[in-house]
């Protein structure tokens, strides 16, 4: 782990996924995420894994779920329009509780938008892209090094909790090549999904104490049914109101129950700050620079960087914002995360959005200018 590497964010995602045991990728070419598919195509066969270039985005998501049902750790990568197309099958994975990871490299939209520029316009779509109530986890790294570790974590969270996990990159992070020195803490431990207990009757959607039903792979000797219909603990469709309520509350409740194990935030100089910035992804790199440069000028600015975007770290943000003169939320969209921040802070501190939607990164200057105005 000691040698330094030159890695793009996209490369780091691939190696992090492989380190966590991913052995299946299915995808479809799309800018700016194609490099991820390219690298999986080269690396997977070396490990005995399989790469599939499917006929479209929908098929890629379907194949990933199919491979996961057979017991392989599976992943796909896409961007805006492709992410929209994948939504129905992401909902299937949520409803049937099939572990899988989706990397979404954000470009500006809607529609074809600005394919080669950066954006954070999918913040809300990652949470609410598919129809219906569902559990989903979203993680947004901000460097190549973190992309490695967090993609590994994404695979592990998905396998452990049987929840689809989305890695949210933006075009800048995906393409930016940087020197990465991996340290001990970057080692990805492999976590496997929980299997059935041999010798006991298998209930594929059993309401266990830990809320995570054991997963049997197809062909492992447990014949059972997987469906996107609302099902009872046997896996078969049900229309019984009491059962539907119980099953759906368990499925969605996993997020609340394991919230503290899933949520990860990073703090920079938050405690004594007058102004708090809340930013994620590549914008958090600009924000980090602002904290550094303004500190030199004797100004106290802090950064709270959500690494986990969903479940949203509302408690952490509320605590960090307490007593501050202002909270600044810079994001490359017209104001999506800021709504969640407003919900978390609930009117106790003034909140200032800072939005850029021309495909360019929000610069440190843009953020520091706003802070100067406020101070």
């Amino acid at each position, binding site marked *: 782990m000691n040698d330094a590497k030159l890695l793009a964010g996209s490369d780091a995602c691939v190696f992090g996924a492989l380190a966590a045991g991913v052995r*299946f990728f*299915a995808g479809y070419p799309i800018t700016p995420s194609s490099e991820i598919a390219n690298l999986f195509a080269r690396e997977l*066969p*070396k490990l*005995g894994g*399989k790469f*599939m270039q*499917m*006929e*479209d985005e*929908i*098929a*890629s*998501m*379907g*194949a*990933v*779920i*199919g*491979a*996961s*049902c*057979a*017991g*392989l750790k*599976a992943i796909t990568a896409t961007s805006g329009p492709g992410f929209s197309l994948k939504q*129905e*099958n992401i909902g*299937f994975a949520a409803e049937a509780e099939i572990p899988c990871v989706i990397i979404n490299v954000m470009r500006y939209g809607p529609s074809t938008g600005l394919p080669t520029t950066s954006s954070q316009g999918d913040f809300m779509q990652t949470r609410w892209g598919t129809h219906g109530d569902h559990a989903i986890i979203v993680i947004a790294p901000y460097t190549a090094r973190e992309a490695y570790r967090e993609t590994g974590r994404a695979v592990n969270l998905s396998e452990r909790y049987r929840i689809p996990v989305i890695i949210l990159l933006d075009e800048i992070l995906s393409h930016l090549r940087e020197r990465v020195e991996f340290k001990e803490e970057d080692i990805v431990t492999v976590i496997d999904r929980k299997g059935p207990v041999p010798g006991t009757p298998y209930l594929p959607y059993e309401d266990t104490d830990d809320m995570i039903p054991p997963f049997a*792979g*197809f*062909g*492992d*000797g447990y*014949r*059972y*049914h*997987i*469906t*996107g*219909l609302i099902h009872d603990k046997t896996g*078969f*469709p049900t229309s019984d109101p009491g059962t539907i309520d119980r099953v759906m509350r368990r499925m969605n409740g996993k997020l609340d129950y394991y919230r503290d194990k899933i949520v990860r935030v990073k703090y920079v100089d938050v405690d004594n700050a007058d102004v708090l910035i809340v930013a994620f992804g590549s914008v958090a790199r600009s924000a980090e620079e602002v904290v550094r440069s303004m500190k030199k000028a004797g100004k106290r600015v802090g950064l709270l960087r959500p690494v986990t975007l969903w479940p949203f770290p509302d408690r952490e943000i509320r605590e960090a914002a307490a007593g501050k003169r202002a909270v600044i939320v810079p994001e490359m969209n017209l104001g999506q995360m800021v709504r969640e921040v407003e919900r978390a802070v609930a009117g106790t501190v003034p909140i200032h959005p800072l939005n850029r939607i021309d495909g360019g990164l929000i610069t440190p200057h843009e953020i520091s200018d706003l802070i100067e105005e406020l101070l």
Partner: protein
Amino acid sequence: MDAIHRKYLRMDKLPHIWCPGCGNGIIMGSFIRAIDRLGYDQDSVAAVSGIGCSGRITGYMDFNTLHTTHGRALAFATGLKMAKPGLKVFVFMGDGDATAIGGNHLIHACRRNIDMTAIIFNNHIYGMTGGQYSPTTPRDAYATTAPYGTMDPHFDIAKLCVGAGASYVARGTSYHAKMLTDLIVEGAEHKGFSVIEIITHCPVNFGRRNELETPVDMLLWQKDHALRMAKAAKMTDDELKDRFVIGRIHRADIPEYVEEYDRLIEMVRKGDTDRG
């Protein structure tokens, strides 16, 4: 119910949701008889289905069963088979499922040639949603979305699959149930992607709007309009109008995708970098 039903059906899930007189039960019967004849261990069989009346078949059969999203059964099945090549994968779809919303997956599955068997229930209509016309509804037939008769030309599924490169294509009917079992056996034993198109009947949402009042009328229509390949070869285009060929239509020996991929893995692990 005899022993074969008790062995392969999930008896506690019956009765099924299909309408009285539906052809789907005949197809399910032919299928489990085919599995019995093939001697496959139930644990090694994966049955994957899409959405619609046909999609419900997986719930009733005692295998590894996966009921997916509309049109996408082949995509899920592709991942399943690639991940665990030892599984015997069967994919059940309806005509709208396979050739409208799932048409792209069908042609690419044909092209790729992964060793699995697609079983397409062609009843020429969207049954579950109440009788809307599908890509295989015959021109001028009536449907709830074609109250004046359809104007859309229709697909010939078998021909479409041959054209897309499937290595085995056959057509059966719900009337010729014994032949259907033979075709499923042959398709399953074929190494590569096999398609069995089944002309079946939907009395409730197709027949009663199209002068085929009862299920029996619909089955007799199949009997009267189906032709063996050899017989069809001797007939003129005019005589063949409104008739269709049944039996094995196409078989080709083409490299199978999963085996090819395993060879690729072996090659890459030896350090070679060029398949050619």
